[in-house]
């Protein structure tokens, strides 16, 4: 191995424990496509947000009390009495929304540029696992303040398990540790909410290992064979990622300092009451599309199956999309369907926040069908029939044209 470290102690240590060379390879020399656009910033943004969530969560956990009689008060104690408690809690709650926003954009970028296609199927699948773990973590975390939305959100979501035939009731008793959501439930939710982020860190590690095996995809979506098409990660992408952090922290701060509760629900500032259901239960905005699909189906078990399928279908996208060309740039028809899909996702998000009656119910059904049709009909068929544009064999052709 080439000597990388001038510092003798570092070289001595690295010879015996090569983490420094691994880091050096990943963050400094790693050859990266030179044509990455700003949509490629969201991976590193997701990483920094995960870190912020873990650090802020750790500090919050030092003041929070996971007991039904004290949880709500301890959160108010954090808000009013703990030094900078308000700031740390707002970082954590707004951070959850930001994390989902970033990850949604990250996934949308992967969909647009075909980053899930061979040989990056496992990389994509690991990403979906991270997304699912995030869903679990944020759901568990949302119950901890023990407000009305916490309690009833947890009730509605855990009751999904009663849809399982025969053993559903036993399973939910096991999940609750009782006959209803109560102190044992809050305790275990807290415990799991603490654990899962570290599992996410583990999967992120595998996600990065898989990424570095073939390197990043790029906007043109072709395999880069010419060395000139790649540049070292540092300083080119370290500086670009840091610039992205700057923009992100500005937006993040605007929310934290000027509109910390705008993404939350006011009912969660009412202490949980097991005998009074709020008149309208809505999940956080990032769950709304999936909540809409749950409610679009009139049958309980089928509704649950549809909602879970809407997530699990993401794993098999690499095989549903039959087109060999990765980037939508060269797929004029797919590109249009892609934007319809994104639009449809927003429709689901909007209708998920409404009472499922009348027109809203009809819209939610059409949108749910379209969501699945995009993956099950559009993706497999377009790959066969679409007339794609000619794909250049290197990235320079494109940049010269412009």
């Amino acid at each position, binding site marked *: 191995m080439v000597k990388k470290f001038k510092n003798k102690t570092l070289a001595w240590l690295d010879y015996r424990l090569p983490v420094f060379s691994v880091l050096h390879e990943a963050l400094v020399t790693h050859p990266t496509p030179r044509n990455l656009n700003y949509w490629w910033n969201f991976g590193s943004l997701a990483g920094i947000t995960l870190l912020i969530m873990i650090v802020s969560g750790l500090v919050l956990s030092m003041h929070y009390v996971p007991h039904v009689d004290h949880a709500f008060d301890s959160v108010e104690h954090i808000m009013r009495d703990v030094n900078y408690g308000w700031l740390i809690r707002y970082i954590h709650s707004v951070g959850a929304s930001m994390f989902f926003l970033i990850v949604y954009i990250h996934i949308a970028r992967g969909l647009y540029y075909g980053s899930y296609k061979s040989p990056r199927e496992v990389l994509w699948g690991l990403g979906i696992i991270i997304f699912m773990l995030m869903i679990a973590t944020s759901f568990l975390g949302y119950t901890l303040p023990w407000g009305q939305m916490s309690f*009833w959100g947890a*009730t*509605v*979501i*855990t*009751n*999904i398990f*009663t849809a399982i035939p025969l053993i559903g009731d036993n399973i939910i*008793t*096991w*999940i*609750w*540790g*009782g*006959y*209803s*959501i*109560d102190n*044992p439930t809050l305790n*275990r939710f807290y415990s799991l909410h603490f654990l899962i982020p570290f599992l996410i860190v583990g999967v992120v590690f595998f996600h990065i290992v898989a990424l570095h095996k073939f390197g990043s995809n790029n906007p043109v979506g072709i395999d880069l064979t010419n060395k000139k098409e790649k540049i070292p990660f540092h300083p080119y992408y370290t500086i670009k990622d840091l610039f992205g952090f700057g923009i992100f922290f500005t937006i993040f701060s605007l929310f934290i300092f000027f509109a910390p509760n705008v993404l939350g629900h006011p009912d969660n500032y009412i202490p949980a009451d*097991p*005998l*009074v*259901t*709020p*008149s*309208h*239960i809505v999940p956080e905005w990032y769950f709304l599309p999936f909540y809409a699909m749950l*409610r679009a189906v*009139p*049958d*309980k*078990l089928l*509704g649950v199956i549809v909602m879970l399928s809407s997530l699990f279908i993401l794993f098999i996208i690499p095989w549903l999309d039959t087109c060999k060309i990765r980037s939508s740039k060269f797929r004029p028809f797919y590109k249009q369907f892609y934007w319809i899909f994104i639009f449809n996702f927003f429709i689901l998000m909007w209708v998920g926040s409404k*009472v*499922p*009656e009348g027109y809203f119910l009809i819209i939610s059904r059409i949108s749910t069908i379209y969501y699945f049709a995009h993956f099950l009909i559009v993706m497999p068929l377009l790959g066969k029939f679409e007339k794609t544009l000619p794909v250049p064999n290197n990235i320079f052709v494109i940049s010269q044209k412009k």
Partner: protein
Amino acid sequence: MSAIGAGLAVWPFIDSMNPSADVLATGVKEVNLDNIKKGSSITVKWRGKPIFIKHRTDEEIKEAQEVNINQLKDPQKDQDRVVHPEWLVIIGICTHLGCIPSGQKNTDTKGDFNGWFCPCHGSHYDSSGRIRKGPAPKNLQVPKYTFINKNKIRIG
């Protein structure tokens, strides 16, 4: 063999998450019915769940008994859901996703069938607590209870 051993060793960890002895011990509750006027109802807490106890009026009983049960999603005769027709005792948890239906106070929305209405996802229950409209699959559950005397019941 070792796989079986490892499998069995996992059980205590799984079972530790089931209801503990003290949670199981809170299973029985006695309720006095003296102060519930005809046409009104009360909510009591049993095993952390709300129990609706409704003193039904004659019209409500008649309404509940005259329904053609073949039209119901979860067919059940009103007689099979009560001990004394005057008293309806049900678990006040929507069988869809566990919200608490409104309809306990006279000023509440009672839904299209003069019983209860679940605000979460729009399930309508009748005056016997049976599901009539909406996504819930089952009737509101009837807990196990006995009449100790004319005006007192024991739930559980």
